[in-house]
């Protein structure tokens, strides 16, 4: 019995650690609720000037700062 204690971490503790990290990552990477709509509007504006191939918006978080990074790819003329 006592030996079990030293053999390694209990799997419930491992599960808790893994979940805490996975959920933290899920929560930060999830977008804002308005993201899809905003994406559509940005596409409409940019399309007036260039021929968009792809657009990717991600939410980034650092300490108590949040940022949006917007990557737009378009074809060379």
């Amino acid at each position, binding site marked *: 019995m006592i030996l079990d204690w030293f053999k390694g971490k*209990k799997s419930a503790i491992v599960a808790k650690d893994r979940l805490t990290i*996975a959920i933290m990552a899920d*929560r930060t990477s999830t977008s804002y609720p308005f993201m899809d709509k905003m994406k559509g509007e940005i596409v409409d504006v940019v399309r007036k000037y260039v021929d968009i191939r792809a657009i990717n918006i991600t939410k980034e978080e650092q300490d108590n700062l949040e940022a949006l990074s917007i990557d737009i790819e378009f074809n060379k003329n």
Partner: protein
Amino acid sequence: MGIVIAVISGKGGVGKTTATGNLGLGIAMNGKKCIVVDFDVGQRNLDMILGLENRVVYDMVHVMDEEVALSQAVIKSKSNENFFFLAASQTKDKSVLKSSKVKKLILNLKEQYEYVLLDSPAGIESGFEHTIEFADAAIIVVNPEVSSIRDADRAIGILDSKSHKVKEGGEVAKYLIINRIIANMVQKGEMLSSKDILDILNIKLLGKIPEDKRVIDASNQGRPIILDNTSEAGNAYKRISNRMCGKSVEMKDIEIDSDGFLRKLAGIFK
């Protein structure tokens, strides 16, 4: 005006339908007028748990499309005069649910019943968003297992972003049920404890339900387990429904394995 409570989860198969049926009946046993509505369109299941599958003639889509009146589609339970049921449509086309129609149906139900419980499809299904849209509160069901908990967190995220109450500046109340707890595994550190799960999800605990083989037997027979006074899970549903009716019921620590403890004691004296 009654209260509308959606029973949801992230991952499927965690026990939403079983919980909805039993809690609905438990609330009715408290003398409150209660209806349970199957919102799992295309996967009608609640009728089987309740043993009412042979009495379904009309379903919620008939009501939403105004083909029949609500009173024509609602099925009254034989075992409890306060308990009512509305079936899901078996159509494969999930787009039958439209926000405006769902809203109307829910307002209608709220006017006539004190408690309206909605059995939701799992969080990844398209019908999920319609089940939570107009709910006043949500019960999130999880199993003490990593994927169920991770997916629950995502479902809570969707709930917060789609709820009309939240959009109107309010808050949708959220409560957790941990289902299928195996005490001796928690004791051995092989299963997440309710404390671990609450630390991770950070919402209020409504109750804990043990793993109980009789749940399957009860659904085989279409007789909700809450009617079985000797069943552990049945008694857990009873405690939870009493809580939902405003009674203060102590949180029973089902994570202590009393059987195992007694057995060990007996072993010492052998």
